[in-house]
Each structure stands twice: as structure tokens, then as C-alpha cells.
């Protein structure tokens, strides 16, 4: 799965996710990537999220929408909201990760796997890519 989230100079957020699914999947199984609110969500008032991981759990938790709701209604930071929702995924037995951008421009990662292919860049000069969990 791949994804991207962004905040532009006009203050608008967007999110997108694309995937080939799960190796060996059957019966037309569909994961969270195309499910708005599970694998992808964007709302200028809250955040933009793209997810990757065990889709069935991300659908059950409603990961992307839940992160935005915590930020919008409980004023949580992008990192705190993402970590809380990923903890919920883990508690159910799922794994994976999310990328999140907030209306103020925070770009954060949260994942409970050994690694996640990821990168972030901002107008403030951040420009980094990483793979392993300890980077």
C-alpha cells in the first residue's frame, strides 16, 4: 500500500491511498484503502490521513476518521490522536501504520510494525525518508 497526505499553501488538506491488497486474497476481498474513513480521510478542520496495514482492523476501528475526530473534537495533537487510534488497532490484534498532516502543518507517523516505508517534507525545511522503526 502507498499513500500521501498534504497541506497546501492555501490551507487545504488532501489524502490519498492506493494498494494491491493482500497476497493470496480471495472472494473479491477489499481492505481499508478504498474505504473513506478507514484507510483515507481528509477534512480541512481536522486532518488528513492515509493508512497501511491489516485492513480488516482498520475498517473496524474506522482509523482515519477516528484520528480526525480526536483532533477536531478533543483538540488532540496529530501524534497523540494517531498513537491512540493505532493502540486501539493493536488491542484488537491488527497492525500497520498511518501518516497524518494537521491543519497547522504537523506531519507525523504512527505505526506498530517493525518498520514503515515513509517520508515527510515541509516548507520549514524538513526533508527525510525512513524505513525502520528505530529511525
Amino acid at each position, binding site marked *: 500500500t502507498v499513500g500521501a497526505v498534504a497541506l497546501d499553501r492555501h490551507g487545504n488538506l*488532501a489524502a*490519498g491511498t492506493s494498494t*494491491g*491488497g493482500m497476497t493470496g486474497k480471495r472472494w473479491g476481498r*477489499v481492505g481499508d484503502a478504498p474505504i473513506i474513513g478507514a484507510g483515507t*480521510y481528509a477534512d480541512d478542520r481536522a486532518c488528513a490521513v492515509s493508512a497501511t496495514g491489516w485492513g480488516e482492523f482498520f475498517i473496524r476501528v474506522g482509523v482515519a476518521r477516528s484520528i480526525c475526530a480526536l483532533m477536531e473534537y478533543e483538540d488532540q495533537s496529530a501524534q497523540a490522536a494517531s498513537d491512540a487510534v493505532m493502540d486501539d488497532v493493536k488491542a484488537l490484534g491488527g497492525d500497520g501504520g498511518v501518516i497524518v498532516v494537521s491543519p497547522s*502543518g504537523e506531519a507525523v507517523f504512527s505505526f506498530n510494525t517493525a518498520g514503515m*516505508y515513509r517520508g515527510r*517534507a515541509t516548507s520549514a525545511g524538513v526533508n527525510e525518508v525512513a524505513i525502520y522503526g528505530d529511525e
Partner: protein
Amino acid sequence: QAGWSLAIHGGAGTIARDSMTPEEDAAHRAALQAALDAGAKVLAEGGSALDAIEAAILIMEDEPRFNAGKGAVYTWDATHELDASIMDGRTRDAGAVAGVTTVRNPILLARKVMTDSPHVMLSGKGAESFAAEQGIELVPPSYFDTEFRLKALERMKAKQLSALDVDVKFG
């Protein structure tokens, strides 16, 4: 001038340092950097968040190292079924496609669903008919074939000969 921000991912999982050669590690980082640079360029030049994420995702969809587009994994029947979605935070418009087999870049089709249809999600053959009507590039299903992904399917099947095991895992 207001700031901009971008984050990308190319999948998560059991990615250990000793599971990749230095060359593969470097190739993955280069691919991520290319996608990041493409999106950042759009934003730095004042472009929209939607155009930025599309630019980044297109590069990753065309990169066989990631499980999307060209690098899509195999289904049990050794085919490929791709899904994608996109959402505009300004309007909360959204578009998604599921189970497409001949769309080179599903993110472009998801965006077309958002901008040129009254729907949010289209699936399967219907989505592909819509893609053809909209001039989205279609490719033969074999375009998505990669030997290393096929071997991954074969390894999985070799380990899970019991249909019940498979049913439990993916059911």
C-alpha cells in the same frame, strides 16, 4: 507566505535491517525520496494538496517495489486487484475504486470518480467501464506481473496447503 507539509508512506510491516541488502535499502529510499520530491515540488510552487498527493502516489504506483499499481501483489488466483481512494479536505469530496484489474494508476481513477461522477466508490468492471469513458489509461492485467510477487504467492501457498487455514486467515 503560508507553509506547506507533505507525508508519504509505501507500506508497513515486518521490515528488518537484516532482511534487505544495502542495495535494496538504498533503492527503497531513493524511490521514497523521488515520490516525496514530486509532491513537495507541487506544494512549493503553490500547487494544491490534491495535485501534490497525486504526484507522489503516481510515482509509487509505477514503482514495483511498493504494493500498489505496477508492484501489486497477487490474489489467490494469481491475478491482481487494485484499490484506491482520494479525499479533498476543502470540500470533503471523495472518490474510490475497488477491485480494478486493468487501470494502470488507480489513484487517477479514484480522483475521476470524485470529480466526474456523483458517486464515492465504484468497483470492478463498472469502475473499468467508467475509466474507459473518462480516458484513464488501461493496461493488460499482465502489466502488473512481477516475478518476486509471484514467488511470494507461491511461498504462501506452499506453507498453507490447507484451505481451512487460508479461510481462517483471510475470511
